[in-house]
Structure formats: C-alpha cells, structure tokens
C-alpha cells in the first residue's frame, strides 16, 4: 500500500490523521448542544370540554323535579271545597213554593205561614250567612295554607340555591370537606371520562376491529398523573394487537389528567380502568 520512500512519513501522517479526527469530533461535541433542553416545561396541554368538571351539573338537576309535584298538588286542592257548599245552597229554595188558599182560615194560616215563611226565610238567610262565613273561612284557610306552602317551597328553593352557592365556593376554595359525596362521584366520573378520551385519542382503532371489545387495566398513578407502575392488563379484549395498541396508547397518554383535589386523587391511586376503544 505504501511506497518505500513514503514509509518515513507514515507515522507522522498517521498521527496527524488521528489528530484531525479527534479535533473534529471534539468540535462537534462542543459546538453542538447535544443535550439540548427540550422545551418540556413550557408546553401546556389544552383539552376542550363542553362542561366544567365541577359539581354544578349534578346538583342543579335534583331541585327541578322536586318543586313540580308540589305545584301540581295545588289544582287538586282547589276544586274540592267548591262543590261542597253549592249543593247546599240549591236545595234550600225548594220549600218556598207552598200553595196559598183565599179563605180566611187559610188567610190566617196564610199569615201564619207567611210569618213562618218569613221566619224560614230569615232562618235561611241566617243559615246562608253562616254558610258563607264558613265558606269564606275555609277559603281563607286554604289561601293561608297555599301561601304557607308557597313560602315553604320558596324557602326550600332558596336553601338549595344557597347550598349550591356554598358548595361552589367550596369547590373554588378546594376544600375537600365541603364537597358532597355526589359531587365527588361526579368529579371522579368526569376525570375518568377525560382519562379515557385522552387514551382514546392515542389508540390506533384499526387494530381493534369493528366489534366492541372491552379491556381492563390497572394503572398506578402519582398525583402528577405519571405512572407509579406500568399499566397492567387484567382483562384482555381477546385480540393481542388490540391489547398492545391500547397499552401503547396508555403509555403515550402519560401524564393522565387527574383532579387536583388530594381527597379525590385517592380514588385514582390504583385506577381500575375499563376501556372500550370503539365506544
């Protein structure tokens, strides 16, 4: 490979060649920022949601059905008392039609009867008055009752609204104690939905076929949403490619969205996730 007269230079040239390579490699290592700091910290993930994951939607629903039955009861109460007095009033004018004779005796009797009738009429008048009075009283009672009911209802509504407000405030203040069990359940539901939708976005659904396979994973989660342990497959879909695809998707979805509330996070520490990729 080398000419005889070149052998004198070979060692020097070899050393120089190695030196050039070492120099270039060093220049590359120094000038390139090989371990460039990835802009991980500046990345913010944005997920779009129709509803806020707050306690609002669940609590606002129950008060609506409650007042309705109460309102419906009112028309039932009203017609009941009215038919009662009417038949009484109609029956009484019937005895007002006795036949009067022209004879004296009869006149006397007539007078008597007239007086009687007068008396009767007076009695009736009195009776009527009493009845009317009673009726009035009954109506007033009814009205009073109605008003009381309405007031009660309004109070109940007010109370509910106040409860809602206070709960909202509690959620805003992140006070775990104030949140009710129902609210907790709704938050857990919201976040499991969010976790599922995030995973679903990463699943290659073509690998899972057309059916509706169901998989179950246990995932150990840290409060940050990172995995404390690798997701474990409990129930396979029966399709190994599908299982692998979902597992990859879960790995790609790290970190998972988790509630900031430490009390609710406890439910996610060992998350049992039932997942249907084609849902």
């Amino acid at each position: 490979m080398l000419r005889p007269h070149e052998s004198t230079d070979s060692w020097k040239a070899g050393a120089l060649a190695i030196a050039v390579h070492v120099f270039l490699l060093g220049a590359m290592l120094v000038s390139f920022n090989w371990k460039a700091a990835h802009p991980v910290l500046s990345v913010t993930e944005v997920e779009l949601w129709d509803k806020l994951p707050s306690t609002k939607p669940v609590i606002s629903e129950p008060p609506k059905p409650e007042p309705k039955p109460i309102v419906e009861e009112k028309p039932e109460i009203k017609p009941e008392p009215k038919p009662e007095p009417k038949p009484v009033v109609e029956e009484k004018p019937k005895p007002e039609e006795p036949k009067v004779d022209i004879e004296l005796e009869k006149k006397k009797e007539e007078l008597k009867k007239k007086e009687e009738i007068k008396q009767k009429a007076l009695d009736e008048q009195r009776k009527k008055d009493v009845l009317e009075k009673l009726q009035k009283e009954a109506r007033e009672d009814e009205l009073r009752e109605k008003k009381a009911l309405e007031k009660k209802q309004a109070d109940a509504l007010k109370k509910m609204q106040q409860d809602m407000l206070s709960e909202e405030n509690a959620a805003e203040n992140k006070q775990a104690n104030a949140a009710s069990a129902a609210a907790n359940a709704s938050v857990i539901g919201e976040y499991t939905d969010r976790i599922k939708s995030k995973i679903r976005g990463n699943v290659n659904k073509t690998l899972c076929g057309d059916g509706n396979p169901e998989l179950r994973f246990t995932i150990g989660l840290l409060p940050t949403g990172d995995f404390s342990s690798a997701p474990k497959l409990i129930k396979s879909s029966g399709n190994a490619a599908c299982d692998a695809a979902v597992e990859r998707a879960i790995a790609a979805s790290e970190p998972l969205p988790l509630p900031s509330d430490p009390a609710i996070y406890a439910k996610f520490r060992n998350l049992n996730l039932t997942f249907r990729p084609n849902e």
Partner: protein
Amino acid sequence: MSVASDMSLLTLITGASLPVQLVMVILLITSLFSWWYIFIKVATIKRAETESEDFENKFWSGGDLNKLYEGITAGRRKPRGMASIFEAGFKEYIRHKQQGKMEVSDVMEGSRRAMRAAYNRELDDLDAHLPFLASVGSVSPYIGLFGTVWGIMNSFRGLSSVAQATLSQVAPGIAEALIATAIGLFAAIPAVIAYNRFASNVDRLSVRYESFMEEFTNILQRKS
C-alpha cells in the same frame, strides 16, 4: 414516550440499527485512511518540489556534470525526482561513450530512453494513492446516504404503528441516520480537495521534469 429523550452523540450512534452502524464504521475507516494518505502525499510532494528545486540550482550553476553525477551516486540514498532522471540519462550516456564508435544519434536515443523510463517511475510514485482519494471523494457521500436512507426507512416504519405521529417519535431516528451522511461528507470533502490539489501539483512537477529532460538532452548532444 418520554419527551426528554437522550440525544447525545454516543446514544445516537449506539441506538442506530446495525446496517447504519456498519456504514458509520466503514466511513470512519476510509476517512482515517484518506487523511493518512493526504498527509503522506503532502509530505512527499513537498519534498519532491524542494529536491527538484535544489537539483536545478545545482545543475544550472555551471559545475562539471561528472562531478555532479559522482555527487549523486556517492550518496547512500537512491536518488529521487529530477536527480534520478539525470542519473539514468548520464549513466547511459557514459556507457555508450565507453563502448566508443557509436553514432551520436544512437547515444542520444539510448540516454533519452533511459531518462524516459526514470521519468515514468518518478511519475508513478507521485501519482500513488491519488486514485484512492478520488474514489473516497466520489463514493463516500453515497455510502453515507445509504446509511441515512436505511435509518430513515426504519424510523418511518416504526411510525406506522402509532396513531398520532409526532415529531419527537421520528426525530431521534432521523438524527442518528443523518450522522451517517455527516461522516460520509466529512470523509469526502477533504479527499476531493486534496485530490485536485495533488493532481495539479503532480502535473506541474511532470512538466518540470519533461522540460529538464529536453534541456539535458540538448546539453548531452552538444557534448558528444
């Protein structure tokens, strides 16, 4: 996928697939050899130039040709470059003269043939390794490109199994594949530059040798 993937040079090289690594090793070896030859050629051509310069100075200083010849042959080293041409021609000339009764044209012809042979030997020495540099300069970019294409093919094949393709899934594969091209270019660029430079240097030297041959032939013809 962890976002903060290690992108250091070492992990890029060790993380590459086997064909890409093989390409990198081949290119590194050729690069080392081409630089070695470059430095050897720089030294030998420089020496040949200074030697011919020295010899021309001595030759045209007007001294006795016999003395000059003795001075060259007395040295332990075998004469090189212009000196070896002079030695071959003058030796042939002396031999013909010693035999006597030779025609001038035959003597001249013989010494000229001897000088041409020496000239060819010298040129062959000067041209040594230049073909290697030429082929490194033209081929190593292609070898590097092959490694890169292979690496990119692999990284895209890996992408097919992911639903959401992000740049962070392709970037490491492409980066490690591009290292092969970088090494190829690193080997090729100096080789091409050196080849062109050495070729022109050798051309100039050969012209110098040829003109010396012509002039020396004239001098011998005048002597005889």
